[in-house]
C-alpha cells in the first residue's frame, strides 16, 4: 500500500521535473516562446494534493500550471503541444503555456492575471453545491495572489455559502522578485483565512507524503459539506519566476539550501531507507518519465498549427428555450 503510493508519487514528481526541464530546453530552442513559468522545486504540492483528489474534482490553477494539468491526466503530449502553440494542444494552440484547459479532465484553466482565479473557483463551487455534487474544487494560487482583494472576497463567499472549495496556496516565498516579507504583513497565508471563516493549516510543501496526507484530510472535510479549507504548502521554486527571470534577487546560498530540501531527493531517500523501493525501481521510474516526455515532445513537434484565427471568439447561440410551447 505505502509502497504503491510512494512509487506513484515518485514517478509523478520525476515526470513533472523532467517535463518542465524539457520545456525549458524547448524554449531555449525556440519551440516554445513568450512566457514559461516552471515548477521544479514545487512538485510535491501539485503531485501530493492532486493524487489525493478524485477524478470528478475540478481544478482551477494559475500560469504555473503544467504539472497540475499532468496530474489531472491531461496527456503530456497535449500539454507540450499547447506550449508549442499547436492544434493538438489541450487548448487547441489558442491558449499557450499559461492557458491550459481541459473540460474533459475538469481542468478549468490556467490564467495569467494573478488573483482573478479565486472567483472562478467560487463559481464552480456554487454550481457543485447547487447540484449537491460529491465533487469539489481545488483552487491553486501563489502567496502573492493572496494580496488581491479577490482572495478575501472569495474566502468570504466560500465560507458564507459553505462551498466545497479547497484553496491550496503554493507559498514559494516570492512574488517574482518580491520576498514574502516585503509583500504581506502576515506571511503565513493560512492565517489569513481565519478572518473570513475559512479554517486552514500549513504543511511542509517539500514533503510530498505530508502534502498528500494533509490534502486527504482537507478534502474529506470539504467533501463532507463542511465548507472551504485553506491548505498552505511551504515550498520553493528552484528556477527563476519564468524563463525571462534570472532570479538575481536570491542569494546562491539561499537557493542551495532549498535545493538540499528537493522534494524528489527527499522522497527518494526515504523510499530507499524504508525499503519501499530499490535503486532499480527508481531507475525504471526515471526511464519511464524520460520516455513519456520524449514522446510528448515528438508529438508536439509533429503536430500542425491551428489555422483558423476566428474560431471560438463566440459560441453559436444555443437555444435555451428549445422545446417550450
Amino acid at each position: 500500500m505505502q509502497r504503491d503510493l510512494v512509487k506513484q508519487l515518485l514517478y509523478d514528481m520525476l515526470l513533472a521535473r523532467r517535463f518542465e526541464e524539457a520545456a525549458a530546453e524547448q524554449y531555449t530552442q525556440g519551440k516554445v516562446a513568450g512566457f514559461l513559468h516552471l515548477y521544479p522545486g514545487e512538485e510535491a504540492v501539485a503531485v501530493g494534493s492532486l493524487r489525493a483528489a478524485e477524478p470528478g474534482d475540478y481544478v482551477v490553477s494559475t500560469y504555473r500550471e503544467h504539472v497540475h494539468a499532468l496530474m489531472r491526466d491531461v496527456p503530456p503530449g497535449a500539454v507540450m503541444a499547447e506550449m508549442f502553440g499547436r492544434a493538438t494542444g489541450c487548448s487547441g494552440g489558442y491558449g499557450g503555456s499559461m492557458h491550459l484547459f481541459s473540460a474533459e479532465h475538469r481542468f478549468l484553466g490556467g490564467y495569467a492575471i494573478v488573483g482573478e482565479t479565486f472567483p472562478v473557483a467560487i463559481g464552480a463551487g456554487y454550481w457543485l453545491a447547487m447540484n449537491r455534487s460529491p465533487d469539489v474544487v481545488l483552487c491553486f494560487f501563489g502567496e502573492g495572489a493572496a494580496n488581491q482583494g479577490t482572495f478575501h472576497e472569495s474566502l468570504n463567499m466560500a465560507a458564507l455559502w459553505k462551498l466545497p472549495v479547497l484553496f491550496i496556496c503554493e507559498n514559494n516565498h516570492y512574488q517574482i522578485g518580491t520576498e514574502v516579507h516585503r509583500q504581506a504583513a502576515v506571511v503565513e497565508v493560512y492565517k489569513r483565512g481565519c478572518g473570513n471563516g475559512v479554517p486552514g493549516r500549513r504543511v511542509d510543501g517539500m514533503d510530498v507524503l505530508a502534502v498528500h496526507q494533509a490534502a486527504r484530510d482537507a478534502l474529506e472535510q470539504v467533501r463532507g459539506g463542511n465548507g472551504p479549507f485553506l491548505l498552505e504548502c511551504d515550498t520553493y521554486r528552484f528556477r527563476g519566476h519564468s524563463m525571462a527571470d534570472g532570479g538575481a534577487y536570491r542569494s546562491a546560498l539561499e537557493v542551495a539550501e532549498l535545493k538540499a530540501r528537493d522534494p524528489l531527493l527527499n522522497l527518494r531517500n526515504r523510499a530507499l531507507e524504508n525499503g519501499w523501493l530499490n535503486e532499480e525501481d527508481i531507475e525504471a521510474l526515471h526511464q519511464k518519465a524520460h520516455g513519456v516526455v520524449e514522446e510528448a515532445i515528438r508529438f508536439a513537434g509533429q503536430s500542425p498549427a491551428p489555422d483558423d484565427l476566428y474560431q471560438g471568439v463566440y459560441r453559436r447561440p444555443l437555444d435555451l428555450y428549445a422545446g417550450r410551447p
Partner: protein
Amino acid sequence: MPWDEGLVNSLVYEAPDPGTGRSLGYAKAINEALDIALAHDPGVFVLGQGVDDPGAMFGTTRGLQEKYGAARVFDTPLSEEGMMGVCTGAAMNGMRPVYMHNRPDFILLAFNQLVTHASKYHYMDNGQTTVPMVVWAAIGRGWGSGAQHSQSIQGLLLGVPGLKIVMPSTPYDAKGLMLAAIADNNPVLIFEHRWLMKKDGTVPEGFYTVPLGKGIYRRRGSDITIVGASHALEVALQAANKLAADGIESEIIDLRTLKPLDEQIIAESLKKTGKILVVDTGWAMGGVCAEIGCLAAEKWFDYLKSPVRRVGLPDIPTPAGYTLEQFYYPDAEKVAGVIREMVKK
C-alpha cells in the same frame, strides 16, 4: 473643448527629434526622466510590482531606489485596484505618483479607481482637489504572450473624460513626455510598447519636456496621411519606405498623445493628401482607429478623396501560437497593401 486647455496649437515640429544629444536606449531615457523628476520634486514617488527588481521594469527604474530610498521608490503587494486608489489619495494631497505596470492588462483590475474615481474628482469637487498622477505600462507582443498579456487598452480608455493618454514612439519622446506627464495636474496614462523598449535614439541630457497633445510629422509626403502612435508607426514607416520606391509618398503623423488629440496636425495633412489611414496597436473596432476615422468623416469630409481606412487588430483575442499570430498582427506588407489600394483610387 475644455480639456485641451489650449495645449493643442498649430505649431508643428518639422524635424522629428533634435540633432543634439547622446544616443540612448529607450528604457534608459525613461529612467533619466524619472530620475530628474524624483530629484526635482519631493512629492514624486515611483511604485509598482518589480520597480526594485534586478529587471527594473525593463531597466526604466534601475538605480532609483538606491538613490532616492525605499520610501519613494518601492515595490508593491499584488493589489492593483487598491494601489490605484492609494495613488489617487496621495495625488489629491499634492503628491505625484508614477505607478508602473509591466502590462496594460494589469491596469484593467484597477479600472474603477481610475475611471470612476481618479478621472472624476477634479470635476466632482468643483476643482478643490487635483489628481496629478502617471500610470505607466508596456504593451506586450510576441507569441506565447497570449490573450491576457498582450492587450492594448488605450481604446477602452479613450472615451473617459478627465484622463490623458500618451503613447510615445522614440526615446526622445519617451523622456520628454514622461516629464510632461509627471508635471501635468491630471491622471495621465502612458502606454509604451514592449518592442520599442530596446530602441536607441538621440536624447538630450537633463530636463526638457515634450508637450502633451501635440503630434509630429515622422515622414513627409503628399499622397496619403497615415496617423497613429507607438509601435504601429514603426510598421507604417516600414511600409511607407517600401512604397517610396514605387513613387508613393506617404505622410506619417506620430500623434504621441491620443488624448488630448492634436486635431490640427491631422487636418493640415489631410487637407493636402485627401486620404487618411489610421493605424493602432489595439483593436480597430471602437478604439483609436474608429475615433480618428470618425473625426475625419465628421470634420474633414470635404478634404476626403477616398474612404477612411484603418489598420488595427481584428475583433478577436490574441492567439497564443506563432502561426496565427502572423495573421493577427498587421505587418508592413499588409499596411503597404492598404496604402496601395487607397492611392490607386
